[in-house]
């Protein structure tokens, strides 16, 4: 007798998106609109809909959102985000770098389930009062490997390079 495992089924939304050629689709934060241009000579351009970001871009954007969000900023989910403020007045040295990396390593993957953290490197730069954060990660569901996200953490906050 065949066994039916419903939990292994692809959700309807993902099934449709896969049929359309993407797995993840998000909107742009500035609510930019996209335009459709008719593929003909002197074709006119018409307003289409909200511009969208798909797949890898959407996941990377989500990771950046989490890194730049302080817990409490998101209205209905105050636990979202990473709190870098606790490192603001700490000395910039290898010990703080270690604990900073430990904090990111333990929390980023929990808040964004779509990616896998491969390697995390924190380099302190006391002269500039900043940390250089290099995140190497993969997105298994999209079969994307070895993506790198470089950023600096300074008194202006988390700034993606």
């Amino acid at each position, binding site marked *: 007798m065949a066994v039916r495992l419903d939990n292994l089924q692809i959700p309807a939304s993902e099934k449709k998106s896969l049929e359309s050629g993407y*797995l993840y*689709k998000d909107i742009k934060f500035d609510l930019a609109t996209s335009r459709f241009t008719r593929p003909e000579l002197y074709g006119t351009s018409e307003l289409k809909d909200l511009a969208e970001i798909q797949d890898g871009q959407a996941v990377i*954007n*989500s990771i950046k*959102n*989490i890194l730049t969000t302080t817990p409490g900023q998101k*209205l*209905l989910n105050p636990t*979202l985000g990473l709190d870098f403020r606790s490192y603001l007045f700490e000395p910039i040295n290898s010990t703080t770098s270690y604990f900073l990396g430990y904090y990111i390593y333990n929390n980023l993957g929990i808040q*964004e389930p779509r990616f896998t953290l491969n390697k995390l490197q924190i380099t302190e730069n006391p002269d500039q009062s900043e940390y250089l954060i290099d995140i190497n990660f993969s997105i298994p569901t999209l079969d994307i490997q070895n993506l790198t996200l470089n950023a600096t953490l300074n008194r202006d906050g988390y700034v993606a390079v």
Partner: protein
Amino acid sequence: MSLQDFTDYKLPKNAYLTFDADTLKNLIIERLNENETFTDQNFEGSNFSAFIDVVAYMYHVLLFQLNTTSNESTFNTATIYENMNKLVSNIGYKPLGDQTSLLNFNLSATSIPANVYTIPRFSSVVAGGNSFIATEDIIFQKTTNTSLERVSPSNNTLYQGAITEATFVATGEPYENIILVDSFTSPQLVQSVSNLNNTKFISDNTFGMFVNDAVTGKWSEWVKVLHSSSNQLRQNDMKNVLTLLVITSLSLVMT
């Protein structure tokens, strides 16, 4: 709330009552999942999720304001004391506000010669650990010289609490407003169930007003002088007024 009860987009008229920010967020996400156009509404870090949170939270705040405004406009559902006062004043009632406890007393005198005596107003009496205040002079006459004698005071009512003095400087301008009790600058004036001993308010709407003569420096009770043709204060009456001493606030002590 489950969407099982609302299988189409025509929600019942009172469905909005079941929504708060979280349930509305869940509803939006469920609808978007059914629509199958976007996927990232399911991930908390996405831009879409941030927008949904803002929309749901705004709805929640607006609904709270709507409910509060609706409830506070009728006496049966009003919960804020000031709103109740406003509502009943519309139909002719004149609510006095919080009242302090009153105490009636009998007065006996001994060891003092026969004479007419006056206990000045605002004198305090401590009884049973609580302080009481006389708001009027207590005048009594003793007819015998030494024996214990029960006398008849002119006023036998005391108010529980203490007198608070507040001094205001008047500019002498006509129609000047003076705020006697400001709950914003005097937090202790806000009534607290857990700390009634510190509660202060103008009991019985009673207060005395005294003015300080600019020349003699003497305080005297200010008597409101009205125009014969209107209820407006004459400007001349305020010209020599420099300082107002307002006797206010009998504090409530629950026993």
